[in-house]
């Protein structure tokens, strides 16, 4: 900026401020309102120094200087507003050695670091796919592959973060131990193999209830273990945990998109080849599907890191679309439950379906919290969310009463105990979340309390899922 520019025109100052603003806009950590606030501060400072006898552009220089070094300022904003650039990893490692920065500096990067590490992601994805296929070929038992899918695939995702975010050795050892224990539990426990005649429900060839529960638990435990690898030593910090939640949400959206696209492409391939009399169904089913499904886990993770801007705008939109719809669904369910009032006799499947709905509600809530700007004042959406929470809470109590009734009638089985425990956790979560939400609407607490509560629940989910994997099978006789 020209230091000795003519300073008799007041528009000069506006031009200087405008150019300062353009410069600051390059920093993603600062939003337009932040800049408006800083700009108002600049004008106040300039007024002060002009009154003390400086010329406007001298005063402007002093004022800008007093704001502090741009990078420090930007880092400070980033620390407070991690939701704006959680993906850029500026806050981890030593002072933000970030792949994006390095690319900006136009320094030649080693091949594996280019395009945000795409080559590494693809290699790990291929590794995950081949691992799935190798287990499939070695055991020749699809049930084994399904049971172990998290144990086989997610280590590659953990490796991706180990490479990308460089957590400490202690963190890596913890994550490794979690994977090891889960893998051993799933494979060494002597799960019962009931006669096909007496078997109840069955998931992909797995018949023992405790085995199915342990498998579901392993997904949760290992996903959170990947989260630990992502968070590194910052895993205690609520903001880092929120970043893990954001990652999970975005990853889910990408994975779904890839799965839909991949599914459509596979179906088209099968159809086209069928039309010329070649049956590729088996090839698609035995090779493309397992390799693709496992590889997509890594590709989606890479996409979250590399291409956020696209989805970043979608996340808040998705929550705004689905929260009203889910609120309607919940209200309808509450009405139905109150009118019928026969849930106690209802089938087990129905109760599990209700549980699934509640899990989705909590997921939606956490996702909306992670996508929301914490500084916005409470608005219609937050009131709608309170309504969703209230109806979910009513529903949860109804389901809980029904479950206790069933348990009183039929005793504790693995299935019932697992869903009962999940229900209690959800009840506690929803009740306290409701309290905080109302406090936020009445402006008694800040939005930070909501964030902190949901991130504080993550270890609880981890603990319950770990119990499902490790304690439940022996407790219920591997039935």
């Amino acid at each position, binding site marked *: 900026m020209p230091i000795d520019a003519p300073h008799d025109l007041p528009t000069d100052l506006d031009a200087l401020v405008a150019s300062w603003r353009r410069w600051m806009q390059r920093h993603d950590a600062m939003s337009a309102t932040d800049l408006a606030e800083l700009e108002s501060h600049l004008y106040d400072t300039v007024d002060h120094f002009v009154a003390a006898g400086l010329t406007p552009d001298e005063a402007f220089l002093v004022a800008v200087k007093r704001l502090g070094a741009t990078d420090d300022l930007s880092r400070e904003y980033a620390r*407070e507003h991690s939701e704006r650039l959680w993906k850029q990893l500026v806050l981890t490692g030593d002072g933000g050695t970030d792949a994006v920065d390095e690319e900006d500096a136009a320094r030649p990067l080693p091949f594996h670091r280019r395009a945000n590490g795409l080559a590494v992601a693809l290699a790990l994805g291929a590794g995950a796919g081949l691992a799935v296929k190798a287990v499939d070929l070695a055991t020749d038992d699809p049930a084994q592959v399904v049971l172990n899918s998290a144990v086989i695939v997610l280590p590659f995702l953990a490796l991706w973060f180990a490479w990308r975010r460089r957590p400490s050795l202690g963190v890596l050892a913890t994550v490794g131990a979690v994977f090891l224990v889960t893998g051993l539990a799933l494979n060494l426990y002597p799960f019962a193999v009931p006669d096909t005649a007496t078997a109840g429900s069955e998931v992909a060839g797995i018949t023992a209830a405790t085995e199915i529960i342990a498998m579901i638990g392993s997904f949760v435990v290992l996903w959170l273990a990947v989260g630990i690898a992502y968070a590194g030593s910052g895993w205690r910090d609520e903001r880092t945990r929120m970043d893990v939640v954001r990652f999970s949400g975005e990853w889910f959206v990408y994975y779904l998109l890839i799965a839909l696209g991949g599914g459509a492409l596979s179906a088209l391939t099968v159809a086209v080849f069928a039309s010329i009399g070649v049956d590729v169904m088996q090839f698609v089913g035995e090779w493309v599907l397992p390799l693709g499904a496992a590889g997509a886990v890594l590709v989606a993770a890479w996409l979250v890191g590399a291409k956020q801007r696209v989805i970043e705008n979608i996340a808040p939109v998705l929550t705004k679309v689905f929260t009203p719809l889910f609120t309607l669904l919940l209200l309808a369910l509450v009405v139905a439950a109150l009118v019928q009032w026969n849930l106690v006799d209802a089938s087990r499947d129905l109760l599990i379906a209700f549980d699934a709905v509640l899990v989705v509600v909590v997921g939606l809530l956490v996702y909306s919290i992670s996508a929301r700007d914490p500084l916005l004042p409470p608005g219609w959406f937050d009131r709608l969310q309170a309504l969703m929470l209230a109806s979910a809470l009513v529903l949860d109590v109804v389901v809980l009463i029904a479950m206790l009734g069933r348990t009183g009638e039929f005793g504790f089985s693995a299935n019932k105990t697992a869903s009962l425990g999940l229900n209690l956790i959800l009840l506690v979560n929803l009740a306290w979340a409701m309290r905080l939400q109302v406090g936020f609407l009445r402006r008694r607490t800040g939005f930070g309390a909501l964030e902190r509560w949901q991130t504080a629940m993550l270890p609880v989910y981890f603990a319950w899922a770990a119990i499902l994997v490790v304690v439940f099978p022996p407790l219920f006789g591997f039935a």
Partner: protein
Amino acid sequence: MRIGKDLVAAAATPVVLGILAEGESYGYAILQRITALSGGELEWSDGMLYPLLHRLERLGHVHSEWRQSDSGRPRKHYRLSEQGEAVLAEQRRQWSVVGDVLSKVWPDDRPRLRLALGEV
């Protein structure tokens, strides 16, 4: 004398909350007040105040509102919330304990130190 970075960081929250307890204010005025109160010895880069204010707002200790200043420019005003008052009272208790301890281990400095920590 320059006060060390860590001490400034630790003091920032109670000082800002304390200033807002005197009545609602905005960024520039808060900084002016800090400079006046500390005789210019408690200082940090002006810009750093804003992320701090945003954090306090996210935690619900302060509320904010955009208003027009006298010169017609928009300006973001902050005021203490009920929760913020409770936090301030708690911080005050903690700081007075620290002040007490320090004045006991440095008996010579008692009057000046007590003054500096705003203790009666």
